[in-house]
């Protein structure tokens, strides 16, 4: 299998504090990777740097053949990297339908969007995604009126509209009921076919449901990597994280 993402020697410092420190991180094609670690381990910052929200101090981030550190957010997105934020970030004033529509990856320039028509093809895609994210009955509801969990799904749905090759999901089940968590695990397992996922999660039970390979970060550095069982047996991990 070939690599879709190669992060090498990545460091970022904020006023001298190194949030991520000399990190190497690799993701294969079609892989579903979970990243765990205690608060302040640098998980969110890592995703921020991959998707262009934060510029690294040093290091390289290669997505397929592209060097992401020299690109800005929308270019990275167009190259095929999708990002879901920790706090669900949807357009609250727009309906679910419009949220998905805007995320459709065509006509993203000014003139194209001015004379944009929602074709049958787009409508079908929206219906299909809405079905996947359990929001088929809510197409005309404003996103602001959805529950916290539904907003999380909607944001995943917006990424699905973009159809990225690499999806970065930051705490996708935060604020969800146990039933919703199961549904989400199912959803992630389903959508991981044909693309790579990097999931940050705190909920160990959830990680166990989806994880094949787990990366543990601690203080901006890679602490351990392996299957869930391997990681759980690792003494260093137990010390900083699982065993408290």
């Amino acid at each position, binding site marked *: 299998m070939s690599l879709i993402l190669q992060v090498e020697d990545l460091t970022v410092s*904020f*006023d001298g504090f190194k*949030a991520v420190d000399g990190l190497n991180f690799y993701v294969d094609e079609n892989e579903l990777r979970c990243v765990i670690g205690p608060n302040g381990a640098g998980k969110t*910052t890592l995703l921020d740097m991959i998707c262009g*929200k*934060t510029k690294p101090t040093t290091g390289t981030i290669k997505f397929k053949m592209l060097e992401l550190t020299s690109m800005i957010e929308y270019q990275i997105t167009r190259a095929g990297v999708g990002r879901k934020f920790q706090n669900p970030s949807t357009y609250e004033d727009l309906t679910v339908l419009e949220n998905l529509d805007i995320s459709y990856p065509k006509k993203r320039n000014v003139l194209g969007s001015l004379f944009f028509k929602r074709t049958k093809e787009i409508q079908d895609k929206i219906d299909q995604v809405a079905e996947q994210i359990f929001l088929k009955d809510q197409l005309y509801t404003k996103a602001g009126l959805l529950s916290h969990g539904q907003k999380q799904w909607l944001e995943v749905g917006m990424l699905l509209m973009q159809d990225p090759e690499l999806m970065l999901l930051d705490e996708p089940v935060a604020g969800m009921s146990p039933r919703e968590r199961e549904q989400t695990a199912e959803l992630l397992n389903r959508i991981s076919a044909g693309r790579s996922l990097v999931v940050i999660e705190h909920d160990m039970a959830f990680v166990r449901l989806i994880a094949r390979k787990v990366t543990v970060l601690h203080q901006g550095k890679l602490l351990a990597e392996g299957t869930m069982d391997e990681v759980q047996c690792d003494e260093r991990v137990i010390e900083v994280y699982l065993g408290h």
Partner: protein
Amino acid sequence: MTPEIFAMQAFNGLSLFTILVLMALGLAIVFGLMGVINMAHGELMAMGAYTTYATSLFFEKHMPALFDVYFLFGIVLAFAVTFAFGYAMERGLIRFLYKRPFDTMLATWGLSLVLQQVFRHGFGPKEVGVPTVSWLRGAWTPSFMPGASFSQSRIFIICLALLVSFCVYLLLFKTRWGLRIRAVTQNRAMSGAAGINTERVDALTFALGCGLAGIAGSSFTMLASTGPVTGQLYVVDTFIVVVFGGVESLLGTFLSAFIIGELQSTFEFLMTGSMAKASILLLVIVALYFRPNGLFASKVRR
């Protein structure tokens, strides 16, 4: 350029600096620390200037014997009046508009228009000047530079501005009250939970910023006469000083006021005053393009 002309040019820049730094420190406190955009800040300066003017009238009429010290009273009164007005303004207007910066801009702009008309009704449409007290009249000529002369009243306000800046620094960084202000502006909820009366801190901080504008007004009377729209002429410059310095840095504000004051007086050597002002504003806007967070900003995680 002879050393004399150079020194006097620099001195003129310093005089402008006093107004800019006092205005900008006040604004930096309400804008930088509290995030409030007060478009009536210039009118508060005018209020301070008019207060000084009214004090001079009062002393002239009722206490001519003490006339020589009216200016000192004028400064204190100008601070007190604008401080009180700022307190009332925060309680009556600003506090309803926190987190709505655009609305704050518009509402305070409205207030500034109302204040201008109040000044016009109270003091007439013409500009008024204050008499200079005897001990500030005249000029100082240093023995080593016989060709230059430095007006004593300007030397006085330069010292005043430096003193006030120093006091602001002490107040914010060396006292318990300053610690509270900084705590509240950094984490409101946490400060409230720690037992700080955040509403009171807000009101006092805002009032302090306004009071500084009042002192700026007092100083202003030593440089020029005051009219109803005097404040409006300074508000844009003051915002630019604060933004140029980096809104969160009081030291930045101080230095930026110095740079802009000196640049202004240098440019005035080459062109008319108004064109000098326009050129500097433009220069700063271009500079901001290269340093969007101002001259003295640090990198933080967004």
